[in-house]
């Protein structure tokens, strides 16, 4: 009811505006969108200080700089419920007026992909305006004397231990990857973040680990230089055609698919690999999308896409981005749809397989 009324009002409003201005400007011109004096709320379903929060706060001033009228862009944290709460609230509350945008992360995409009944947001209906990839490197202790992924067969029968944040968290990606590789890994849950997992590795409790790129560079590279850890492979990134490619931060390191080939002699395939690809895309290659609500007019969408494209091209952002965004290409403008689709969709049989896998192997109730 209300929705309808609002739409009518909006329609009436824009019609009035169009008549009032006597069609001076074409309807789809970006110049008709002006946020001067307004406040844009960037909804963040995580609490202050997390990775996604930092990401949004990093972008916020640049977004403000390149949106017409330079609106005040603030980050609105709505934490709780593993980021489902805030995202649900966004789709229920946000109006398609360009003053509310939503930034999510793999942890928000995963329950959607897994078909969690409590999810009320539908990525297919939200409109992406920016997609930020991230990456990471998987590494082993040097004591195994495994130098490259090709030698992973040496520790095939040995039980490795991985400090995990939970079976349905972002650590689902390494879980599926290790399984594909045929490694025998025990996942010890309850880690509060990847930092905890790294600590467990440094204590010798965990014997396989991965860190996201920037944490790897500051915290694990010293271990590699000291000769106590050996990098195995990076997760890789997705190129414009949706193929897995080497991570630009680690051009000398094979990516996961290459590692698989080095070990098994053939490319991975099958439903397990489809499942891995979906969660890898959602958790790494296209981890953080920023979206406008359903029903936002094309000119507002175009305005936002242009603003983000300009922001990413800003030399100041390029200079400052290292620790927050890494060397990854931010998907803006035309590149966005493909990557967004990878991050937010999964083949039905792959979904069923993962659900079944999690329920039978890890007693997860879905």
């Amino acid at each position, binding site marked *: 009811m*209300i929705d309808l*009324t*609002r739409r009518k009002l909006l329609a009436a409003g824009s019609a009035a505006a169009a008549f009032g201005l006597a069609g001076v400007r074409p309807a789809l011109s970006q110049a008709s969108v002006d946020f001067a004096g307004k*406040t844009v709320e960037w909804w963040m379903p995580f*609490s*202050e*200080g*997390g990775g996604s*929060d*930092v990401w949004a*706060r*990093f972008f*916020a*001033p640049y977004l403000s700089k390149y949106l017409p009228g330079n609106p005040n862009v*603030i980050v*609105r*944290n*709505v*934490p*709780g*419920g*593993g980021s*489902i*709460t805030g995202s*649900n*609230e966004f789709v229920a*509350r946000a*109006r398609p007026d360009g003053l509310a945008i939503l930034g999510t992360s793999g942890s928000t995409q995963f329950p959607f992909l897994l078909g969690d009944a*409590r999810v009320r947001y539908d990525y297919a209906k939200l409109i992406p305006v920016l997609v930020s990839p991230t990456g990471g490197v998987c590494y082993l202790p040097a004591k195994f004397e495994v130098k490259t992924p090709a030698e992973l067969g040496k520790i095939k029968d040995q039980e490795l*231990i991985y400090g995990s944040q*939970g*079976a*349905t968290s972002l650590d689902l990606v390494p879980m599926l990857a290790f399984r594909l590789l045929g490694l025998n890994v*025990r996942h*010890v*849950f*309850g880690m*509060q*973040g990847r*930092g*905890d997992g*790294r*600590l*467990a590795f*440094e*204590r010798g*409790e965990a014997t396989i680990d991965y860190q996201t790129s*920037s*944490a790897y*560079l*500051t*915290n694990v590279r*010293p271990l590699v230089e000291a000769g106590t850890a050996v990098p195995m492979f990076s997760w890789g990134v997705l190129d414009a055609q949706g193929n897995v490619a080497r991570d630009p931060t680690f051009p000398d390191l094979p990516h996961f698919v290459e590692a698989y080939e080095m070990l098994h002699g053939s490319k991975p395939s099958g439903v397990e690999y489809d499942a891995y690809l979906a969660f890898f895309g959602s958790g790494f290659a296209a981890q953080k999308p920023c979206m406008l609500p359903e029903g936002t007019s094309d000119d507002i969408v175009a305005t936002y896409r242009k603003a983000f494209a300009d922001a990413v091209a800003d030399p100041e952002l390029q200079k400052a981005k*290292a*620790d*927050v965004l890494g060397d990854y290409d931010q998907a803006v403008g035309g590149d966005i749809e493909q990557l967004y689709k990878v991050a937010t969709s999964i083949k039905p049989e792959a979904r069923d397989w993962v659900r079944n896998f999690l329920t039978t192997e*890890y*007693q*997860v*109730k879905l």
Partner: protein
Amino acid sequence: MLDVFITSLHNLLTLHHLGFMMIGVAVGLIVGILPALGGIAGMSLLLPFVYGMEPTAAIAMMVGLLAVIPTSDTFSCILMGIPGSSASQATVLDGFPLARKGEAARALSASFAASMIGGLFGALCLTAIVIVARPIILSFTSAELFMLALFGLSMVGVLSGNSLAKGVAACSLGLAFGAIGTAPANGGERMTFNSLYLMSGLEITIIGLGIFALPEVLDLLRGNSSISSTGKLGRGWLAGVRDTWREKWLVLRCSTIGACVGLMPGLGGSVSDWISYGHTVQTAKDKSQFGKGDIRGVIGPEAANNSCAGGNLIPTLLFGIPGSGSMAIFLAAMILIGLQPGPGMADPNRDLHLTYTVVWTLALANVVGTAACIALSPSIARLTTIRFVLFAPFMILIIVFGAFQSTRSFEDILALLIVALTGIFLKRFGWPRPAFLIGFVLAGQVETYFYQAVQFYGYTFPLRPIAVAIGLVTIASLWFTSRSRSKKKAGDAPGGIVTDIEFEPEENVTAVAKNLWPQVAFTAAAVAFFVFTIIEGAQNSFLDAVFPISVGIVGFLMAAFVLFNQYRGAIGQGDAGNLNFDQDSGPDNGSLWRFVGWLVGFVAAIGLLGFTLALIGFFLAFLRIVAKAGWLQVVILTAAAVGFVLMLTSVLYMILPGGLLQHYFYDSMVWPLR
């Protein structure tokens, strides 16, 4: 090494650096004094400005804020009984009773002095320890952290008040509350009633406000007086400082505890707070005044929480693992300004000078902050002399608004209401609330670290050397406690165990009830809750079920024991002894339920009309009907409250809780209403 010191000192003592530090200190003072806001709010306030700042200036500003908050939030602990942050809940226990006795001034100055010494001592320890901190932190694995958590739980012995059975039951209740939400091992959801809100568990802020603050406010409303029962502020600014000086060894011991706990990633401020309070009680010769206004109960935890804030910096800087919510934001800010924390921060050839700058800024800001707090206290302490009925709506407003900051949903307020009801009964029937808090604070750690330790080291994990040492300390501490317990008269209690500390009774209240049925009903409800915990727990996979079932069984046995004796007392067979405790059995000074009704009404109005309208209605009605204030006063106070909230929310871009009105007519509402 020396040149690192010199570089850091040089950094520290520039006008530029000191200037930004002062800005941080000033924001920290304001944010700390306002009870609804803690370190997280303060840090998020600074975050947007940090961006693009020169790194050392940004760090000076943030560290200035971080250093002052554990000092300035003492105001609300002592003057209003509202825990200023989750790391200062224990201060309320003795601080607030001191304010009620009219000794607010003494309590404040003692606590500030202790904070300052704690902060300085913490900084000193950190300076020495930074270079070797890495191996130390790495040697504390999940096994050792579990043993430390157990040590924390063993403090229940000292914090149990007059009955150990009730203490253990209250602690189990806290543990069970802590088990609500997603389990650490297999991610099963326990006692969540399929609600997304409960999925991430109850927030410690809400527990603190509900268990301590609200029951006190409602209780105080019954006696129509000011917070300070004498209506006076009391002298004793110097007396407080002298108290701290007299207890200097206690201060140093508690600062050590704080720094050590802060150093361990994963334990956090509230753990250090409660362990140091337990330690203070345990090592005191005369324990009779704890919980009723013993100055040592303020000095110990306050010394600890400041040094803990310093200790917290180490895992944050060296490992990039934040020890608390505000540290998480500090970390985020560091990344935003281009500093990635890691091992380089302890390397003399790289960023060690930065770490020292941070640590010493912390020390310096501590001194400045303490001086400012002492200067501000006389005027702020005057709040305790205001007629309480005029002051109470502001406190309720602050508590509700503070609870809402946890996840910014209406459920926060509902959760607060439910926790507050639990708190009211715990207080009334003499179930020790500190024991409940210890349980709640440690629930996550006990479960997670136990599970991880078993996974990593098998069931022989307690045999690791450091774990054995911690185990021995725990046993020594328990022995110490039981000896002091058994010295006391033991004969007349059915449990045979009595302590000398009674946390709950107010002065001059006979708590031995003739009619035991209300107590029987509450204990029966607790028994039922433990049964529920067991049943709910059992529906999960083995790993997720072990903890709630164990807690449920211990709690059930203890509560059943209490119930059995109380029931026998109720039907006239025998005397329930020290298990018979009902604060409301004494001379009647008006029912508490009337005020609970007001609270429920306020919450319901928020649910219907949203915060702004509910606030106006609540203030008008309460001040007019309960406080019987004149219309002019009513209008001025209401306008002040609304103005305060609206200013705060617009400056900090906060949102206000919405109700059904906002849900259905969101588009036709304008700002303060929506």
